[in-house]
């Protein structure tokens, strides 16, 4: 008997083989030429356009859309990539509904923004399909910079530094570069091995060496990097996860959502990836939604997200909540886990409803239980492995201006640095801006 969504326990192959391709293929298929022309025609070419201000990397959106209108998608891609070298990935993963497209005047007017994200993908795909790298590296400066972390922040920083002629070495603890582009983002947002293809394309600038399997704190020391390189950029993301602090957390079947997603992203044949029948996801952010949606797409029968506060407080946008609901995920808000019940393996989770009080969130006496054979914890990632001597701001590395840390010659950006949203596009902006600052510093002295 093959497995089905009703098979108890954590098992692979709940769905017929062909369902996996469908479920994990492109969420939004790319525009063809005609669709792009029609979508681009809706842009008003606003003066001092609000969408540009809403883009953390400040892409000249009206200009690139006009270039698409004029039949020059590759020129459009250059406009995009000159501000945001990961414009291809951002076109796929940016929550545009809370960024550029939210600011679009047509969103205000008609509730129907110009589809900026998809147009951006149309342009960047056109350029990358031709294998063109549109930038040329400046003459070598002889300066060497170490970048730690090959996520969006590190890659953007490395590219901009290489562009200016510096020699860059990127170290990453993981076996593959890309950071969460490779290990975190939902599979259906970045189908077809795009993350690695983009890294390869980015490296065509030259002057960047990537060393994977090299962890700061294990294989490398910040002091050594500061000594051996002219500057250091830290883009190490948030490698730790928050603990649930609920009884029974060590039951079998309880797992960090980010680990599950990373495993999913690295599984070539998803029909071999085991998933529970009754899956409970605890948390309310993008990670919770992605874990829940993908659990459902793998064939789990019941998937429930439980978040301790109200809907509006969820990190996942209304749009993402809708996407989860449309996939068949149930969302319960205003409830927090009390204990995980099971004898070795998880069987149930007990929750208490919460109340928003003057002293913050309070558990009420009202409780309920959800059947569960798999539980994903998605209650936030934390900074881990920060080298000593770096000043922190709250739970992140303190930075001033374009990513300057408290240590001379050390910059930081992306999720690990204070300020900005934890988004791919913000990481790119911070990496790029730090690179410009490093460049100015290196050339000045």
């Amino acid at each position: 008997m093959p497995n089905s969504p009703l098979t108890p326990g954590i098992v692979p192959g709940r769905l017929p083989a062909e369902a996996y391709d469908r479920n994990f293929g492109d969420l939004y298929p790319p525009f063809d030429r005609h669709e792009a022309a029609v979508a681009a025609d809706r842009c008003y070419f606003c003066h001092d356009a609000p969408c540009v201000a809403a883009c953390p990397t400040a892409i000249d959106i009206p200009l690139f859309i006009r270039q698409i209108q004029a039949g020059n998608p590759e020129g459009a891609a250059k406009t995009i990539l000159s501000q945001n070298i990961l414009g291809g990935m951002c076109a796929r993963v940016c929550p545009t509904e809370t960024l550029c497209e939210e600011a679009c005047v047509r969103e205000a007017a008609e509730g129907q923004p110009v589809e900026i994200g998809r147009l951006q993908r149309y342009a960047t795909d056109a350029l990358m399909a031709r294998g063109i790298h549109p930038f040329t590296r400046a003459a070598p400066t002889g300066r060497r910079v170490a970048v730690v972390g090959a996520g969006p922040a590190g890659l953007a920083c490395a590219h901009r530094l290489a562009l200016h002629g510096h020699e860059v070495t990127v170290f990453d603890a993981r076996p593959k570069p890309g950071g969460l582009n490779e290990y975190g983002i939902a599979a259906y947002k970045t189908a077809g091995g795009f993350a690695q293809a983009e890294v390869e394309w980015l490296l065509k600038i030259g002057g960047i060496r990537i060393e994977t399997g090299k962890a700061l704190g294990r294989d490398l020391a910040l002091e050594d990097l500061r000594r051996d390189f002219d500057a250091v950029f830290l883009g190490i993301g948030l490698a730790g996860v928050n603990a649930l602090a609920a009884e029974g957390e060590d039951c079998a079947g309880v797992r960090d959502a980010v680990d599950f997603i990373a495993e999913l992203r690295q599984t070539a044949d998803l029909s071999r990836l085991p998933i529970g029948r009754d899956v409970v996801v605890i948390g309310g952010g993008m990670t919770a939604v992605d874990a829940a949606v993908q659990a459902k797409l793998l064939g789990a029968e019941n998937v429930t997200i439980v978040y301790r506060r109200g809907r509006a407080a969820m990190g996942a946008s209304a749009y993402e909540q809708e996407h989860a609901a449309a996939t068949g995920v149930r969302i319960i808000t205003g409830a927090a886990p009390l204990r995980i019940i099971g004898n070795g393996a998880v069987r149930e989770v007990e929750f208490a409803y919460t109340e928003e009080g003057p002293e913050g969130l309070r558990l009420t006496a009202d409780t309920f239980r959800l059947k569960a054979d798999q539980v994903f914890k998605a209650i936030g990632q934390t900074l881990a492995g920060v080298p000593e001597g770096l000043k922190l701001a709250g739970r992140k590395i303190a930075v001033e201006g374009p990513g300057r840390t408290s240590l001379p010659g050390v910059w930081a950006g992306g999720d690990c640095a204070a300020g900005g949203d934890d988004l791919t596009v913000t990481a790119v902006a911070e990496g790029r801006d730090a690179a410009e600052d490093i460049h100015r510093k290196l050339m000045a002295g």
Partner: protein
Amino acid sequence: MANLATEFVGIRSPNPFWLASAPPTDKEYNVVRAFRAGWGGVVWKTLGAEGPPIVNVNGPRYGVVWGPDRRVLGLNNIELITDRPLEVNLREIKQVKRDWPDRAMVVSLMVPCDEESWKAILKRVEETEADAVELNFGCPHGMSERGMGSAVGQVPEYIEMVTRWCKMHTRMPVLVKLTPNITDIRYPARAAKRGGADAVSLINTISSITSVNLDTMSPEPSIDGKGTHGGYCGPAVKPIALNMVAEIARDPETAGLPISGIGGITTWRDAAEFLALGAGTVQVCTAAMTYGFRIVQEMIAGLSDWMDAKGYSSVAEVTGRAVPNVTDWQYLNLNYVTKARIDQQLCIKCGRCYAACEDTSHQAIWMKPGRVFEVNDAECVACNLCVDVCPVEGCITMERLPAGAVDARTGRVVSGDYANWTTHPNNPMARAAE
């Protein structure tokens, strides 16, 4: 329901919508289907003189200008007059007129510029019992190089001469179809009138190259790597056609000469505009070629509903209604002072009005914090560009300053009197006129 029946130089048709002389009217099969769909009349595809039939190119004959959603905005063609034997055309014309006696059947003609040729063809057409002939002095390509079409239409003396021959040799009404490829449409129209034309029809197509293939460096449509100018028509040419119709309608020398309006007519509204500027019937080509014959149903319903709403009971009542309001620049009222007004409720903050006024007009729009756009009356010259570029209908309007108000730009009190350039103190000619 308004009565759309028209009588135009004695030709009756159930509605003013005729198909212009072109592929849609090239044969019985098409014309019968058009009549079934509801067209009031046709001008048969231009016939040439007896002899070996015309030869068309065997590659593409159309070039096109599209909107982003591939809406046809303009079409150009390098087709010639009919390439079917004269005999066949005449037989079909006769048959169709017999089968559809209530529809207008006009036959378009183009033969060499000598009296005998015209005399000969007119005689043949009369035998078909068609309602009228239309002299094609318009086609800008192919035939003009042989001394026909616009080669005649560009020389008023020839127009007059040929028209006179035709009036001499036939009892049928003669319509003269004018080419727009001239500098002042009034001259050919006057010539047609002098020659005795019963009516003019306009416009024929405009000499054009629609695009160039930048890979092969050939103009489109490309025939084996080469292209030639064609005739442009469709929605893009409507403004040009409207002006030409109006010029003829208000020229004292041609005023009252019946006009069949042609050029870019696509909906009932386009047709109504041609009627208002003096046309008695309208002719359609590109719209039918783009969407098929069924579009006439929208035209009939739309015109009829609009006439009902306005209380017009006949097409004749509409014809020429707007002509008295077409004037020369120097008679426009300079005391009509308006200012742009932006409705903040409707404004979507795109800033296009600001960009347009700031970059290319009179720096009369302020961009205030929060993307609030407001008009500075002290600078606004009332050009209306902001209204034109605003994507929201009704968001920016032009408001007239009442008499007695002060124009913040000039500091002058607005007068309620009419005053124009002819009497303006800055006009060097003004005193001479006194």
